[in-house]
């Protein structure tokens, strides 16, 4: 076995993860319009959908509906950004950029984690947008540091999770056209079979069961507890976090196995 050049395996690994993430974020720096264009959708949901649905009394229990909706829309916009990574991966494969990653000595999990990390940062930029909108709409947003940290943690985790899921789907479907179809088929059910825009208790029982298997439900629950001034978690922050971490870990393991097949 030859000696390896780096300082330690841990710092080498971190360097490789950050290399991938930083390349992604450099693209964002070169083209910040992408962020602006992504601000439109959450604005529509909060301003149009939210304002109308807020007229329905008691939809979200005692909570003002817009307050209830804001963390859900935040989670949704993070989900949509993260799902974009799968199509980007197919794009990179078609161009040949992916091969540069795959012939490098970086462990395959480092390549996946790097993408996931950059998705987390992209997700945070969505949070800034949703927070600004929330202030404008008079939503009871909490700016307490520990609450903000909680939101950051849940966004980063949720975003990384759905990015990795999207990479897995990309590795399976392999073409942009198929991914477009699957992407729609994936994001809408994930969104609607969650507690993002209505409480789980309003759902029929079968849908309640599905929504409990849905990672987005746990992300929204965590965000609801941290984003709002009087936010509460109905599931429990600890469980939310645990479910997301466990799901993410499993998905990274699967993605790292499938990712090299994209280069074949």
């Amino acid at each position: 076995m030859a000696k390896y050049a780096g300082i330690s395996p841990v710092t080498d690994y971190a360097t490789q993860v950050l290399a991938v993430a930083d390349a992604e974020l450099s693209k964002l720096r070169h083209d910040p319009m992408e962020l602006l264009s992504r601000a439109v959708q959450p604005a529509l949901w909060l301003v149009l959908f939210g304002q109308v649905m807020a007229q329905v009394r008691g939809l979200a229990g005692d909570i003002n509906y817009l307050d209830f909706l804001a963390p859900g829309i935040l989670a949704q916009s993070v989900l949509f950004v993260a799902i974009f990574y799968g199509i980007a991966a197919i794009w990179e494969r078609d161009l040949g950029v992916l091969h540069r990653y795959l012939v490098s000595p970086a462990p395959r999990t480092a390549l996946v984690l790097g993408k996931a990390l950059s998705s987390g940062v992209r997700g945070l930029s969505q949070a800034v947008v949703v927070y600004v909108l929330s202030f404008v709409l008079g939503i009871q947003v909490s700016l307490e540091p520990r609450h903000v940290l909680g939101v950051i943690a849940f966004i980063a985790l949720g975003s990384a999770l759905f990015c990795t899921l999207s990479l897995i789907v990309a590795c399976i479907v392999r073409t942009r056209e198929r991914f477009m179809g699957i992407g729609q088929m994936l994001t809408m059910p994930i969104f609607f079979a969650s507690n993002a825009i209505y409480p789980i208790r309003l759902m029929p029982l079968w849908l309640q069961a599905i929504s409990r298997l849905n990672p987005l439900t746990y992300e929204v629950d965590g965000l609801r507890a941290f984003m709002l001034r009087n936010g509460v978690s109905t599931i429990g922050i600890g469980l939310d976090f645990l479910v997301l971490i466990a799901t993410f870990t499993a998905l990274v393991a699967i993605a790292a196995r499938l990712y090299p097949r994209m280069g074949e």
Partner: protein
Amino acid sequence: MPDGAAPTPSSGTDVAVSTSALSRRFGDLVAVNNVSLSVLPGEIFGLIGSNGAGKSTLIKMLTTLLPPSSGGARVAGFDIIGEPGQVRRSIGYVPQMLSADGALTGYENLLLSARLYVIPRRERADRIAEALAMMNLTRDADRLVQHYSGGMIRRLEIAQSMLHRPKILVMDEPTVGLDPLARHAVWDDIRTLRETRRMTILLTTHDMEEADELCDRLALMHHGRIEVIGAPAELKRQVGPEATLDDVFAHFTGLDIEAEGYRQAREARRSAREHG
């Protein structure tokens, strides 16, 4: 061992690349069929053949991108199946498709490679500057690669693949889609790398002029098999006096070199660049 250098194998390295009965099947199709060849250290070795001859599949196996169906190979002394990480550290790879990221600058592309290969931080700037200078890209380092010409992108990709000072550079169709000037510049770069770095270069090409001018030895692939191996002059002599490499190609494959493959690959590369 110096920081950031390619690893040294435990076994001898009197050959740079050796394959033994290497095969790859895709369903019923045998893309690479029982290929056994050796590439010597410091030589420029060319794999020639038409589209679908199996060159790219062979290259993908040697660069660990694709597992073989049977047989094996050692690259820089490491086993492609058992020691893929060591193989990856020992080689530089310039794929046929565009591998530089158009949405990043030249410098950012190089930085990405430097970090993926964990070149120590204190050496990164020097190595990147050196690679940029060698490939004549210093002035364009901070421009987005999508604004580069085809020749510049190729040179950037070569710069990216040599940052970690690999012993072997593997290039899949290095000059497809380049204009004659850029093509000659890339040839010069390849020769310089061999002279100054004592690198072994394994490349594939459709281009018989390229094979003739650049390569020390050639292997002609056809339907997944190696039909003949030898120096360009030697191959030509085998076919007859006054024979060109085109004649060699036609003699061993029964095909005309004006096969559509070349044009197709050219167009594929051009459209890839436009999308980039």
